[in-house]
């Protein structure tokens, strides 16, 4: 699947922190932000489960534009009601879309160039799921 399609998920961009007070400092320090947990190596193309499947849990154009709605809906159901089915869960996204490097180890899905990060970076949408959630699948 090509990631260079112009797919702008409207509304995905989150409001920036309300730190207008110290905007100047923010600009000065922004460069020293999180380095992330990127490994030197990137994923091998075709190494994700998703690469071997015809479609995601919904048609690709829908997923490109509105995946966050599904994730957010499932998120609230999981937290508030304990529903843990994986069809729209973030865990499901990671498990299926994460790629392996040439040594066979998983590459974090939010690492530069990987599935989530590549597209979010392209459209300039904040990707903050993995500030708190594991960006690697559970090792069984």
């Amino acid at each position, binding site marked *: 699947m090509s990631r260079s399609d112009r797919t702008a998920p409207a509304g995905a961009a989150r409001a920036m922190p309300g730190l207008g007070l110290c905007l100047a400092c923010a600009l000065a320090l922004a460069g020293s932000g*999180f380095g992330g*947990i990127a490994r030197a190596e990137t994923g091998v193309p075709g190494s994700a489960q998703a690469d071997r499947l015809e479609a995601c849990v919904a048609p690709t154009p829908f997923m490109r534009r509105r995946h966050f709605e599904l994730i957010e809906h499932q*998120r*609230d*159901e*999981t*937290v*508030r*009601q*304990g*529903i*843990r*089915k*994986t069809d729209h869960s973030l*865990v499901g996204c*990671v498990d299926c879309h994460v790629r392996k490097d040439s040594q066979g180890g998983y590459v974090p899905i939010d690492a530069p160039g990987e599935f989530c990060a590549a597209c979010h970076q392209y459209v300039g949408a904040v990707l903050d799921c993995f*500030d*708190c*959630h*594991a960006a690697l*699948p*559970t090792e069984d």
Partner: protein
Amino acid sequence: MGEPTDQPEDRQRRAFLTGAMAGAGAAAAGAVASGVLLQSIAKAAPRDTPVSDQVRYGMLIDTSKCADGCSDCVAACDAENGLDQLRKPEGADDALWDMQRPRWIREVKIKNNSNGRVTTLPMMCQHCEHPPCVDVCPTGASFRRADGIVMVDPHTCIGCRYCMMACPYNARTFIHENVASQSTQTPRGKGVVESCNLCVHRRDQGEATTACQDACEHQAIVFGDLKDPDSAVSKALAKQPSVQIRADLKLNTGVRYTHV
């Protein structure tokens, strides 16, 4: 303790379980077997229906069995909930960090002022029916699930710490630092409040125990459904008098203690 109610759904489930056990010739195995069965049945299928108030999860802690100097439950909780993955930030003061690091369960030793009797017990979120932390939360992030688990929705928590001011048990902790690694079952990020959630991920996978209960080789912790009169915890509660901590606040806690 809370009044056990006999709900149709519970009866049905119990009938099913009893039948299954009788068939296996293990009727005498009681609570343990039902736990194992539940686990093996539900493990493959994560919960796909909303939790209901037909169940209220709770615990009974028999302090006479809790051993002085033992912290197995604390270590097990840290491992289960990823708290052991947190590292002291570089340059942080040791003593201060010890007050800032998160902890969901802790061991406390108390001495009776009149007779000098010493009691050791684990303290954690007491999972109140009327939790002060839920009342004060401005965004509703601190909430009580239908099955009685009091927990924080980290997506709407703004990190104001008012719930920590309100909790009578010092049970809540704030994540004071950036978190580099998380396990899938316990997401965690800087700047929000969290506390014991009775191993909620295990509940939703249909498992029967909590990590602290599994780790306690003295069997001081009994976990289960307070509304099911046949659950191990209900039976244990019926057998001996128990107390709520800060019973004066009338919070109807889900965690009870004996021999305090």
